[in-house]
């Protein structure tokens, strides 16, 4: 009996370790096949510039796609590479030559420029990249179509219409203490992805499909033409932008390094639904500018009304308070009001709350106001506020340096000759008694701008009879609320 069980385990082990040689991409046959097809599409000069000894293939067992990156000799793969989608036999289905320029600093989302070309050298797309998003695809008024959930496994996923576009390049925190790494949606760049980023209906499956670029719609309209694609419709696979920097996610075989693919489901990427701040500003065009009046209101919502200086409210969650803006344009009997604020895409980690994280804008209609200051502005000042609000919304969220108060105050102060300032909020954690009888050193955290200190500043201005005192409202009753926003406009 023991022998029988032993034999069964041995058979299982052998089978579990067995590789399907026919589909193993890490063989020289696969690479040879790819290169022979590339010779048909690339000039001999271009082909000679490719470094075929350092190819990176995204793990097809995970992503279901054979997505191969080949760098150019003497250039970093994070900046220049040929991107190919092939079948298991090395036949090229889609191709792009990718050039990326990253202007952002370490630890911040990818921002810079991207150029996508066909193998023949025709430029398909040239765009700025802001916080991982290709501006050419997101700022051009593309109408998103809400995704239809077809996979029963994704019933808890909550798609937002604006969230149909996953960022083409994202930053992922890599464990505590280590530097974040840039990941890229290779499928998105190829136009074959579930995210539909570059889709424009099908693609012909040829090696020189240079024409199917730009302005594809939402994912539901995008085609999944690859017969070997098994990517779930509500997720996208991302690969490390520079796989050589992440050795533990790579494995070599047959001249090609196989890199891991990380799957992002929509609910993971979109922790909160965001608003397109440009679309919010578009609605102000509904009011004729001739003779129109404008106002901006800087609002504070405290975490605990009865204790305005309290840093957080721990009742039913962690609430650190909020600062937001209410903008109004009125004229010709029409009134448009928009309330919005700056958020982290997900709550900062309790383990490392000061780590920069992607930001998001959110509608703040019907939100409690505990203190506010209103300022009348003219059309020129309104334009400055608009551009500042859009520009600052692309910054990463950092709890101590770029939070909701920093954003709202930055926009509010952009047109003021005497900027509104406040004292920094300083949190002191006393030392903890250690087992050896000693005490650990106290921890001091300084947050430059906070709802608490803004409330205190406005309160002081009001009580001191400041020139703007009449424009300041203080209300700790929970009854003062911002109006309902108009919502976005195309």
């Amino acid at each position, binding site marked *: 009996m023991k022998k029988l069980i032993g034999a069964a385990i041995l058979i299982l082990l052998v089978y579990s370790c067995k590789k399907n040689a026919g589909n193993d991409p890490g063989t020289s046959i696969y690479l040879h096949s790819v290169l022979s097809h590339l010779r048909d599409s690339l000039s001999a000069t271009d082909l000679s510039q490719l470094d075929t000894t350092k190819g990176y293939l995204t793990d097809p067992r995970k992503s279901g796609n054979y997505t191969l990156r080949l760098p150019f000799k003497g250039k970093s793969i994070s900046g220049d590479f040929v991107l190919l989608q092939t079948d298991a036999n090395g036949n090229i289905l889609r191709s792009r030559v990718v050039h990326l320029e990253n202007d952002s600093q370490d630890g911040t989302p990818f921002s810079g420029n991207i150029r996508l070309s066909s193998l023949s050298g025709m430029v398909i797309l040239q765009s700025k990249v802001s916080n991982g998003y290709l501006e050419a695809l997101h700022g051009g008024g593309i*109408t998103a179509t*809400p995704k*239809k*959930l077809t996979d029963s496994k994704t*019933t*808890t*996923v*909550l*798609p*937002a*219409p*604006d*969230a149909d576009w996953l960022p083409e390049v994202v930053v992922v925190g890599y464990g505590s203490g280590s530097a974040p790494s840039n990941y890229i949606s290779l499928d998105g760049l190829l136009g074959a992805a579930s995210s539909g980023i570059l889709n424009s209906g099908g693609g012909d499956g040829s090696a020189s499909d240079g024409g199917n670029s730009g302005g594809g719609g939402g994912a539901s309209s995008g085609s999944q033409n690859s017969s070997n694609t098994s990517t779930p419709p509500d997720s996208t696979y991302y690969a490390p932008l520079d796989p050589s920097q992440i050795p533990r996610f790579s494995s070599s075989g047959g001249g090609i390094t196989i890199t891991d693919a990380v799957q992002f489901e929509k609910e993971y990427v979109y*922790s*909160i*639904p965001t*608003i397109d701040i440009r*679309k919010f500003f578009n609605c102000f065009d509904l009011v004729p500018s001739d003779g129109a009046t404008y106002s901006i209101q800087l609002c504070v*919502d405290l*975490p605990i009304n009865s204790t305005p200086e309290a840093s957080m409210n*721990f009742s*039913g*969650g*962690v*609430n*650190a*308070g*909020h600062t937001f803006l209410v903008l109004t344009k009125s004229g010709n009997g029409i009134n448009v009001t928009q309330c919005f*604020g700056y*958020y*982290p895409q*997900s*709550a*900062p980690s*309790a*383990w490392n709350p000061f780590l920069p994280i992607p930001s998001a804008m*959110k*509608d703040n*209609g*019907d*939100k*409690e106001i505990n203190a506010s200051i209103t300022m009348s502005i003219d059309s020129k000042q309104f334009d400055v506020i608009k551009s500042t609000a859009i520009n600052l919304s692309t910054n990463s969220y950092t709890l101590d340096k770029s939070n*909701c108060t920093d954003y709202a105050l930055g926009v509010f102060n952009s047109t003021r000759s005497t900027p509104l300032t406040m004292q920094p909020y300083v949190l002191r954690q006393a030392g903890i008694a250690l087992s050896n009888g000693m005490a650990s050193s106290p921890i001091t955290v300084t947050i430059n701008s906070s709802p608490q200190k803004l409330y205190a500043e406005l309160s002081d201005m009001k009580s001191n009879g400041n020139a703007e005192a009449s424009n300041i409202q203080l209300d700790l009753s929970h009854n003062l*609320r911002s109006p*309902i*926003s*108009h*919502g*976005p*406009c*195309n």
Partner: protein
Amino acid sequence: MAHAIKNMKKTTLIFISLFLFIAISNLPPIHWFYKQNDCWFSNGNGSFTFAEMSFQGDDFQQCSHKFLEFRKRKLGDTVLYRLCSMNIFYFWDYGEYIFSQKYKVPYKSWKEIESRRDPMANKSGFQDF
């Protein structure tokens, strides 16, 4: 007999330890260190949608207030649904499931709501998503 009593004591001890472990994992300072339980809400046809972001005060209380305002304006379905389901394996959330007001709101899947949602060009001021 003595063996049975010993076994019973052992079982009781295991149950008490398990209960204490679950209770401690539900305590706010520990619970919040690894999880912020934000939830999304919608009415029956998706004309009202709200995404919690408790960290900046967009909590269920605000959702309720905004939904009251929505109902006053008679803009659509008047029943609020919770879109986040309870998970029996998330023992660290049991406290919230029992005591939090938001989990007293009935659950409906987004898939079902979305199928009843009218096509929309743009969100209204009552739609977070």
